[in-house]
């Protein structure tokens, strides 16, 4: 039986003059998945933060509804209070304490103890149970900092589950997961729903929403653009409510013909674990997509090409060996948009302006002096080109929504007009409209001769953007698919290590 357990009454939230949310009426029901969808900056994360006690609403209230249907106001002053009433949030940006081990991180604040001494054995046993639940086969004494981003995301989910929440709130939990882990997560959520847990779910992947949501609230510019019941939910309706505009068609890709090789990677082995060598070629103006499961070694390969971390093998750019530190490679025209934007991409306390101009600075400099006027023009231009919102270069990056943070990092590298552009999950947590903008910007860069190599766990994106698709498995390139012949099934076949010959 489905019953409302939490209700918001005209919730609003303002930040220093910006209205992030206004008049939100949402019902959270036990045994139901409520999806919140909307463009970047629509206010989804803000709403979830209010529901979970991270932020206080500026107006309106939250009500808790008991079994008898009596509502009473719930004032959440902290996350701890929310946890007490059974609300758990999985944040959009990962924030596990890196120096803690998995058991410590999952049971943070709920450590087992006996007479004040930590009972590590029982903590590890419990942590192992929750890790297994999210499909992670990891030792609970592993350090969080050593995990790749997708696994950290799963650990965050395990942590929220372990709180035995009545209301589980997930902010883009799948943005760094590949198809297989996403499926597993959705199955798990379905199971939780059956057991009566209320789930609030945010994702930019509408197919996930369509697969699992019982109801969806569409937000636009902080307001309710509509509430959809399962029966009336379809992709077109949601998109129309969300965007309020039709997306322009994508630019056609020119045929490359006999374009010369730009980036040549030959027998690169990264120092992580035992890996097989990877070799690939990207031509001038070509966009190559790297698909594969989490842990297939895509990030490691991209970082090896960028000179971050140790690797053997040779890398050539325009026929000359590319070696040395990342700084030296950047001087030769290399650019990398990292996967983990909070950790590796952003100077969160600094404004958009300095974040965007960071890599461009030496190009605009006269005898080492920053060209302030040039910088202003560059950043203003980039904000318009990528449709960054709010379009204020002085805005601190910390206060931008996830998708706009992603645009900020991309803008930093588009600004230097690179000859090789490496992108790791280029549209992680980005809405359909912004994804379109980012894809167009990448295509435009390729048209000017840039060799683009991107890794993405989003098969739809790989099929949409890539001229050619390379599938990685266990550190090596397991197979290659032309854009015309590629399908999700063929990619998954190669990614799981099977059917290598069959696909050829």
């Amino acid at each position, binding site marked *: 039986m489905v019953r409302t357990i939490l209700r918001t009454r005209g919730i609003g939230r*303002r*930040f*220093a*003059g*910006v209205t992030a949310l206004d008049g939100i009426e949402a019902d959270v029901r036990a045994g139901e998945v409520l999806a919140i969808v909307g463009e970047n900056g629509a206010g989804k994360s803000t709403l979830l933060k209010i529901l979970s006690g991270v932020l206080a609403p*500026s*107006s309106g209230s939250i009500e808790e509804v008991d079994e008898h249907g009596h509502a009473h106001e719930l004032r959440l002053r902290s996350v701890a209070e929310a946890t007490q009433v059974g609300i758990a949030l999985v944040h959009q940006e990962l924030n596990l304490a890196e120096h803690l081990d998995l058991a410590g991180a999952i049971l943070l604040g709920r450590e087992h103890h006996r007479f004040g001494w930590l009972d590590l054995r029982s903590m590890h046993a419990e942590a192992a149970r929750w890790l297994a639940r999210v499909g992670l086969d990891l030792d609970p004494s592993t350090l969080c900092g050593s995990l790749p981003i997708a696994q950290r995301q799963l650990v965050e989910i395990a942590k929220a589950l372990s709180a035995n929440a009545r209301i589980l709130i997930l902010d883009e939990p799948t943005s760094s997961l590949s198809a297989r882990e996403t499926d597993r997560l959705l199955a798990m959520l379905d199971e939780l729903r059956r057991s009566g847990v209320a789930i609030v779910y945010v994702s930019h992947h509408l197919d996930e929403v369509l697969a699992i949501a019982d109801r969806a609230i569409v937000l636009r510019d902080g307001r309710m653009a509509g509430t959809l019941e399962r029966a009336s939910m379809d992709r077109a309706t949601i998109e129309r409510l969300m965007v309020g505009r039709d997306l322009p068609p994508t630019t056609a890709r020119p045929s490359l013909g006999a374009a010369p090789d730009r980036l040549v990677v030959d027998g690169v082995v990264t120092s992580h674990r035992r890996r097989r060598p990877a070799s690939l070629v990207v031509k001038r103006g070509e966009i190559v997509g790297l698909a594969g499961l989490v842990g297939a070694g895509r990030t490691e390969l991209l970082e090896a090409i960028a000179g*971050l971390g140790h690797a053997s093998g040779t890398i050539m750019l325009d026929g000359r060996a590319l070696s040395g*530190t*990342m*700084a030296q*490679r*950047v*001087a030769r025209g*290399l*650019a*990398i948009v*990292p996967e983990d934007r909070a*950790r*590796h*991409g*952003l*100077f*969160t*306390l*600094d404004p958009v302006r*300095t974040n965007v101009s*960071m*890599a461009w*600075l*030496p190009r605009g*400099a006269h005898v*080492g*002096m*920053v060209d302030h006027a040039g910088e202003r023009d560059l950043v203003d231009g980039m904000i318009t080109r990528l449709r960054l919102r709010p379009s204020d270069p002085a805005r601190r990056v910390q206060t931008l929504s996830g998708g706009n943070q992603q645009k900020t990092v991309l803008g*930093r590298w588009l600004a230097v007009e690179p000859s090789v552009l490496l992108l790791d999950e280029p549209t992680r947590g980005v809405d359909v409209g912004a994804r379109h903008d980012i894809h167009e910007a990448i295509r435009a860069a390729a048209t000017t001769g840039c060799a683009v190599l991107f890794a993405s766990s989003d098969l739809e994106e790989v099929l949409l953007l890539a001229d050619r698709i390379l599938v990685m498995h266990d550190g090596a390139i397991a197979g290659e698919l032309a854009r015309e012949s590629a399908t999700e099934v063929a990619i998954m076949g190669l990614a799981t290590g099977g059917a290598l010959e069959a696909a050829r």
Partner: protein
Amino acid sequence: MRKHWGLLGIFLVVCIVTALYGKNFLTAYNLMNLVQRTALFSILALGVGFVIGTGGIDLSLGSVVCLVGIAVPWLLIEHGWSPWAVVPIVLAGSALIGLGHGLLITRLRLQPFLVTLCGLLLYRGIARWMTGDQSQGFQGEFAELRSIAVGRIPLPGLEAFRLPATTIPLIVLATVAAIFLTRTVWGRWLLATGSNESAARYSGIPTARLVTGAYVACSLLAGLGGMLFIFDVGSAQPSDFGNFYELYAIAAAVLGGCSLRGGSVSVVGIVLGTATLQVLRNSINLLGLGSQLEFAVIGAVLLAGVAADELVRRWHAARLERRGAG
């Protein structure tokens, strides 16, 4: 400048209180002394400011002051070397010390606190061993060389107050540092490295080189400072010369608004912070509080200053929040 109002307020209050209740504060002699000490300590604080900007710390600079300050008269008088050799050699030596710190921190990935703590012990030990723990001095010689630090420049219109010569290197260094930090690519990158080192690395910024450079600058300025200090005082004991100078420098930088987490440095703040500390030391003396209290008072003021700064920041943030909510 706006964020220095608080510090400027403290500075003025201490000045006014001392002028009203102390003896001889506003005499030309005392003011000249204050300017001299502020200039000398500011040079040290500017150096450590760079290191703090990268998110590091340098505890060894007091010992570098000692080693250099002792080595200069030792080489000139005991060994009879020419000043033309001694000055470049000690400066190069201090830069090398910084290079050592930088490489240990960036290549071996040792923690700055540890590396420079060892430096603190090491360089003082060397200075004491080298001289047999004997006091070193110029014995009345090299007056011309020493005039770089003890010289006083007459100012038009002022009779008794003449400007200490050390203000010239300070003004030059502070200007260069301010331009470097706010106008140059490397300055921007240095602060970026301090605010998020791995994002800086992923942006193609040569972080290791910048961090090393900051330690070189810090030790070099400590060496220069050490030389000026010894020129100023004439002779010194290896066992106590430069003691706690690193703490004065760090305290001044923190008072001046540099965050120990890295990423923000203010040259104006550093100089103002140093001036405040020096006036404070002076006023403890002139108000007859007893020099035993000196550290206690400085500690208390530093704590109060930092706490007040944090409170103002919170109040400001809360006000923004409220204005948003209204």
